[in-house]
């Protein structure tokens, strides 16, 4: 679908990772871009393998280790941008930008142990800061319309609704000033 719309204005500047902060539970969380090591891959598999199925959205993350690995292979590729929120050597959350035609699709996951602690806001800002640093232009996402916490987070970041006619809301953000 190439008929997606994006805000006219370019989004604010977001901080490029690495960065670190203390979450609302007093845990030290570090946000770092994904570097492609086996250790990162295994830590991601571990997070998604224990991910609450109730937090699944539109079929992702998939269930079962082999399908999780297959899915991660696709979204951790060289043409994608990934940022991880770490609590020591455990993955608390993961956000990704996957290329799709002339834009990138965004998704963000915070493990249930680390939810409602402010990590999602830092994580998505870290991902968008990383995206700005590497020159990503347009970003879109879909979100289930009942997921008010996510919708309000995306709005606060600067995403605007581009399609409200389906089961999921579609939202867009202009991250950098690319041509057109």
């Amino acid at each position, binding site marked *: 679908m190439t008929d997606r719309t994006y805000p006219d204005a370019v989004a604010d500047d977001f901080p490029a990772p690495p960065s670190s902060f203390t979450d609302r539970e007093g845990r030290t969380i570090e946000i770092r871009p994904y570097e492609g090591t086996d250790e990162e891959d295994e830590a991601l598999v571990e997070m998604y393998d224990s991910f609450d199925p109730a937090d699944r959205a539109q*079929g992702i993350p998939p269930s079962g280790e082999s399908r999780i690995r297959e899915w991660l292979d696709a979204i951790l590729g060289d043409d994608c941008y990934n940022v991880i929120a770490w609590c020591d050597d455990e993955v608390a959350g993961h956000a990704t930008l*996957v290329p799709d035609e002339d834009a990138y699709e965004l998704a963000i996951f915070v493990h249930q142990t680390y939810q409602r602690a402010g990590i999602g806001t830092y994580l998505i800002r870290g991902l968008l800061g990383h995206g700005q640093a590497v020159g990503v232009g347009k970003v879109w996402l*879909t979100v289930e319309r009942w997921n008010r916490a996510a919708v309000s987070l995306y709005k606060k970041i600067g995403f605007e609704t581009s399609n409200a006619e389906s089961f999921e809301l579609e939202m867009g953000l202009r991250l950098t000033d690319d041509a057109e």
Partner: protein
Amino acid sequence: MKVLCGIGGSDDSFRALDRTVDRAAIAGDDLTVVVVDNEDADPTVEEVVTRVENAVSEAGVDAEVRRVEGDPGSRLVELAETEGFDEIVLGGGHTSPMGKITLGSIAEFVLLNAKTSVTLVR
């Protein structure tokens, strides 16, 4: 079972077609395949009709292939009601590069408005 399969020409609709035709060959369903308008789909209506006719004849199924114009969702629901179908079968959605499943607009409409059971093929 009297089955109505709606095909608009998207990839997932062809998957639904293949699966429905295969099932009809085994279960002996009374199958009608309807080619509807889908402005999001790439192939032309003629190409879709040809593909449907080939799938039906290859499976050796005695299915009726029909072309229906107008709003696809409401036409399918209307057909199912007026002609007493037991079930509507449709494609189960498009998967983005990210892996997210999004239902097509026809499936969304039919799911919410049909009185019959609806099967989405994955």
